[in-house]
Every structure is written in C-alpha cells, then in structure tokens.
C-alpha cells in the first residue's frame, strides 16, 4: 500500500486512491481527496453529500444505496455526478473516506 500526504498527514491509500483507515479522515483529508477527483473547491453541496455518506457509513458500516443518497440530499442523479464526476461510489465515497465500493462500472 502506498502512503501519500493528505490533509498534512501520511495516509495509506489503495491503488485507486481510497484511504485504508476511515479514522484517518477529516475535512482537510477530504479536501485533498476531492482534488484527486477533480473537485478543487468543496462547496456546501459537496459537503452535504460527503457528510451524509460519512454519517450513514459510521452508523451502518456500509455505504447507502445511490437512490437513498439522492432522496436524503435532495440531489438528482445527474446533480450528484455534476458534483462528483466519478459518481457517488467511486467519487463521493472516496472523498468521504469510505472503503472502495465493490465492483466497478
């Protein structure tokens, strides 16, 4: 596993850039992870998605279904992809410090 500087800390990431220790996550880590996803400026809309993913993960130890993300945050599918071009799984989950989702599309 590679270690990179995220939020001023040395953090282990996998080959797709997902952090390996969810506890290492904080907002400055999220901002740096967002940059790797082409999101240079984390807006309130970005944080709304990221914070929901994070809260859900901490409660249920899994990522929510995409439709649940849409319904809870009030964003349409296309808007989620506008915020995170890699999508809710690969993009938003990575920024939220969640483990890499299974499978690939």
């Amino acid at each position, binding site marked *: 596993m590679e270690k990179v500087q995220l939020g001023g800390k040395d953090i282990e990431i996998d080959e*797709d850039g997902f952090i390996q220790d969810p506890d290492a996550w904080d907002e400055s880590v999220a901002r740096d992870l967002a940059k790797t996803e082409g999101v240079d400026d984390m807006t309130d809309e970005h944080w709304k998605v990221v914070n929901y993913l994070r809260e859900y993960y901490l409660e249920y130890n899994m990522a929510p279904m*995409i439709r649940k993300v849409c319904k809870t945050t009030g964003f*349409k*599918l296309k808007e989620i*992809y506008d915020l995170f071009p890699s999508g809710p799984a690969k993009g938003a989950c990575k920024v939220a410090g969640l483990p890499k989702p*299974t*499978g*690939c599309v």
Partner: protein
Amino acid sequence: MELITVSRKGGMAFDVSVGRHHLTCDMAPEDGGAGAGLSPVEMFAGSLGACIAMMVQCYCETCGCDGDVGVSLALELLPKPKRIGAVVVDVELPRGVSEDRRDAIRRVVRECVIHETLRHPPDVDVEILTDRELRPDPEPVGAGTLELRRN
C-alpha cells in the same frame, strides 16, 4: 431481428455489429482495456436507458408534449457473484407534462422491453463452439491421387 455479432478489434476491444450498425465495447484502462468504448455493463445500462427514453418520448408525444425526454442512470454492483445489484434511473420529462401523468409514465417505464426482461429474466442458451465445429479438418488428400501417381 438481425444477427448480433461480436468480434475482436484488438486488446479487450470488441466490435458489436448488427446489420450496418457498429458499436465498440471495451474495458476501462483500470480494468485492463483501452477505454475505446462503453464497457459491457455500461452498454447494458445504456440499453435500458434508451428503451425507457424511447417509450416515454412516445408517450409524451401522444399527450401533445414533443419536448425532449432525458434519462440518467447509475449502477450499483454487488460481489460474489459480481453482478448489478441496483439500477437507479432518473427520467426527466419535457416541459408541460403535468404531475398527474407521473403514475402513467411509471407504468410506461415498467413496460419497456428491457425493463420487463429484467423483471422476467430470459433463458440464456449458450453453445460453446470449438475448432471441431468451427473449422472441421479438410478432406485428407485422397488415396486415389496417390494411386493415380503410381499408375
């Protein structure tokens, strides 16, 4: 329906051909391809999206709304066995379609062929063709020829 053929273009890229129409299908670079086309999974979802879009467009035009229907889809994959676990679909209606048509449009979406197929999975009947079936040995050079030479 015309025969659908899939033939290798190179690397992991394949040409999907139906009559005079061609699509390139490839894996993403991170999955070992060159990203020269849609992945099979994306093609599958795109097929569902196109089917829904066409059906809803027809419905809207019947109702006198000829604006453009749009469809966005996202997939969730599940492991063991690796498969599509959920398809999330947003259907964007043209301006002027009233709220009270929402249930009817939902029915139209459910009745599109691809959606119905997902709800009632078809048999997939696969035959594996090896050299023996595809390229049978040519007739051995006949003994008669040899005999002719002898004579």
